């Protein structure tokens, strides 16, 4: 069970809602994933053109926890403004702090992320900052009182998987709040690996929405997160340099 602030969730998979080929596929993928937390972005409505369908408005909102992000913000102040807009909907009080500091890599700005997190905590939000794999930043954020830390596996949308498992492990080891590996997951093995490292959850979007069959990939990710978590809880065997026979070495019928 994943616990964030005072909320509990059965699923450890958090799903993004961007860039699906169609609403129909998206709806099925979300269902199959069994994710309970869905991320969204906050944007201007296109009120001057014909009404376009909106995915969020088709959801049974009683079944999901919305996790809006502050994507688009480049400063703490912009992030706070977006977060307040999201909260004013009356639908959510959780916020994924996402303050991008570099357009090419989409890596987060650590200084602005820290500042935004502090301001949003003061405003009473449940704060989940998206960060790089910086161990000290994760600790500083936890000291501020954030409700989870969300280090990236690798750059957003890159699908490169976990490029620095050691630092993610350091973050997981030191954290008393949930650690959710966010961004960069490419395939089910990445999600399972994140969970085997001891992460409390995985947040992914493009890995599912950009897959050839997003619905099938949603199922694969659900299973990978579950498998990885079970593997972590079970405690894997130690690695050894040479073979050790699994069958008894006595009582051979050939001797």
């Amino acid at each position, binding site marked *: 069970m994943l616990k964030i602030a005072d909320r509990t969730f059965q699923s450890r998979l958090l799903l993004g809602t961007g860039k699906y080929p169609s609403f129909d596929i998206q709806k099925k993928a979300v269902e199959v994933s069994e994710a309970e937390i869905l991320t969204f972005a906050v944007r201007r*409505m296109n009120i001057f053109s014909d009404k376009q369908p909106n995915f969020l408005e088709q959801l049974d909102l009683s079944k999901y926890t919305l996790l809006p992000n502050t994507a688009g913000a480049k400063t703490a102040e912009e992030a706070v403004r977006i977060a307040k807009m*999201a909260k004013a909907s009356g639908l959510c009080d959780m916020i994924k702090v996402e303050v991008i500091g570099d357009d090419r890599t989409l890596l987060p700005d650590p200084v602005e992320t820290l500042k935004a997190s502090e301001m949003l905590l003061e405003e009473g939000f449940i704060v989940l900052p998206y960060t790089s794999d910086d161990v000290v930043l994760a600790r500083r954020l936890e000291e501020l009182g954030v409700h989870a830390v969300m280090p990236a596996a690798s750059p957003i949308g890159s699908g490169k998987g976990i490029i620095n498992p050691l630092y993610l492990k350091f973050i997981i080891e030191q954290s008393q709040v949930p650690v959710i590996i966010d961004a960069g997951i490419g395939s089910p093995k990445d999600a399972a690996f994140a969970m085997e490292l001891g992460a409390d959850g995985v947040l992914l979007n493009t890995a599912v929405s950009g897959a050839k069959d997003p619905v099938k990939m949603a199922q694969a990710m659900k299973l990978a997160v579950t498998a990885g978590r079970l593997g972590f809880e079970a405690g894997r065997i130690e690695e050894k340099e040479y073979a050790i026979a699994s069958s008894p070495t006595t009582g051979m019928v050939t001797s």
Partner: protein
Amino acid sequence: MSITLNGKSVDLLEGVITVEQLLSHYHIENRIVIVEVNKEIVMKENYKTISLSHGDVVEIIHFVGGG
């Protein structure tokens, strides 16, 4: 009366004075939206009472897919 609405300058028809009337005019009164007037969020319970003024900067925002 003209306002800046989602970055575009628009002339409001007579009778469109409050936030509620603005939303109805664009047929989005039943949609999930957030309204900001001059960078101040307008809470739903104030849609009826907040009147728009010439030169106001209004943003109508909603949730879209994102990661």
